């Protein structure tokens, strides 16, 4: 399977040059190529037929992980392998490493990017759901120079759909600094490290007594794509991460979600996975929030 005609391929060195190209190809006819791990398949199968491909590999301002008092900033072109190697990743955002470490395989992790994954927002992808639970802020730059930021909850609309305009580029994702906070992610799929049947991400913040003051839970792999599970979040708040409470939270989530049946699992099995994964993930998140390794 070979691509349809691509009129132009450009490889700018600044993000301004990159969005500039969009001016010549309105309406999404120019597409950004990050790691290419999803987009290349779509182009080769001709499900996407861009007139122009804008390759982001040479734009250094889109790369790099910066950790400071404010929090962490990940450039949109940060690769999975970069996240795994980032020694300064705080326990609040350890879920990013959990997820990145097990995407696809080594080749995929050397190429795929967090920005690309979030902008593609495939329903089973790990990173969008992880960023959702972690409460990231998405930074966008428009072709006319206008910059804006939005909460990831508003950015992720549904499978393959985000709030990024055709004339915008995602430049970075920002996570606020957080104390006494821990997160974790785990998925289950038939093959190791492949796109999951279901994935669960949990982030909890604790007060000085170890009680949960805020919780965010997200799921990947369901038909509606990366989604929060507010019903379960409420249950965790006020708890100290007791097993019984965690189980109750995920039993409720399993009950409430719209879990599809397909060749890999029926909805009952997906619900069971939510319960079993949720228990492990939430337990680990609480442990990390408490500073346990």
């Amino acid at each position, binding site marked *: 399977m070979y691509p349809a005609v691509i009129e132009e391929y450009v490889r700018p060195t600044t993000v301004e040059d990159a969005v500039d190209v969009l001016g010549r190809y309105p309406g*999404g006819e120019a*597409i950004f190529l990050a790691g290419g791990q999803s*987009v290349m398949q*779509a182009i080769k*199968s*001709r*499900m*996407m*037929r861009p007139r122009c491909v804008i390759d982001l590999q040479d734009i250094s301002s889109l790369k790099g992980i910066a950790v400071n008092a404010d929090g962490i900033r990940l450039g949109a072109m940060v690769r999975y392998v970069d996240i795994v190697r980032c020694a300064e990743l705080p326990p609040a955002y350890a879920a990013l490493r959990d997820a990145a470490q097990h995407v696809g395989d080594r080749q995929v992790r050397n190429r795929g990017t967090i920005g690309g994954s979030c902008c*593609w*927002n495939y*329903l089973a992808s790990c990173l969008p759901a992880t960023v959702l639970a972690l409460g990231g802020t998405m930074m966008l730059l428009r072709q006319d120079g206008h910059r804006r930021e939005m909460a990831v909850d508003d950015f*992720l*609309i*549904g*499978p*393959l*759909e*985000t709030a990024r305009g055709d004339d915008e580029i995602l430049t970075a994702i920002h996570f606020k600094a957080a104390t006494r906070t821990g997160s974790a992610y785990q998925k289950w799929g038939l093959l190791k490290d492949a796109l999951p049947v279901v994935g669960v991400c949990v982030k909890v913040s604790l007060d000085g007594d170890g009680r949960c003051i805020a919780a965010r839970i997200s799921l990947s792999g369901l*038909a*509606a*794509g*990366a*989604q*929060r599970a507010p019903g379960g979040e409420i249950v965790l708040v006020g708890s100290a991460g007791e097993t019984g409470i965690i189980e109750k939270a995920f039993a409720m989530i399993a009950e409430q979600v*719209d879990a*599809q049946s*397909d060749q890999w699992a029926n909805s009952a099995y997906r619900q069971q996975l939510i319960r079993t994964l949720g228990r492990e993930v939430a337990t680990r998140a609480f442990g990390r929030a408490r500073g346990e390794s």
Partner: protein
Amino acid sequence: MELTNEIRIRAPRERVFAALQDPIILRQAIPGCETLEAISPTEFTATVSAKIGPLAATFKGAVSLSDINPPASYSVSGEGKGGPAGFAKVRAQVNLLADGDETVLSYQVKADIGGKLGQLGGPLVDRTAQKLAGEFFQKFEILVGEPSKIALPSGPPVRRRPRLWFTGAAIVFALIWYLANH
């Protein structure tokens, strides 16, 4: 794929029935519809283009109505071809019940998606159908009668179980469009 649902439209049954077969209304209500022609009172052809996220396609569909029982019910069957992307075949049964000035429209739809769309579409299929049906009914209701008193979301449904009246089981036209979204 099978979809069954029931929705309420704030317009009298006779008007709804007629509007459902009116090419002018349909052409405006169907998202991404570029052309829609009635070849006969019971046969339509349409070309629809649409996008979901980064994916776009153009579909050529042909649909025919049968078992027409105004203003109560009719059947629809048709096929949309998306060239190399594949095709979809649809069979639907539409029933209208009068409820005062309003109409309760119920439908059962069976759709078979084939070719690359069917193979790569997967779970996106149902969701897109729902979304498109939702958009169709939004526009259709505006065209046909008074706008609904319930606030319509400004965008497509977001990650929660869509409310019943908004949930799409797509009428056949909607299904032709949803294919375009892959």
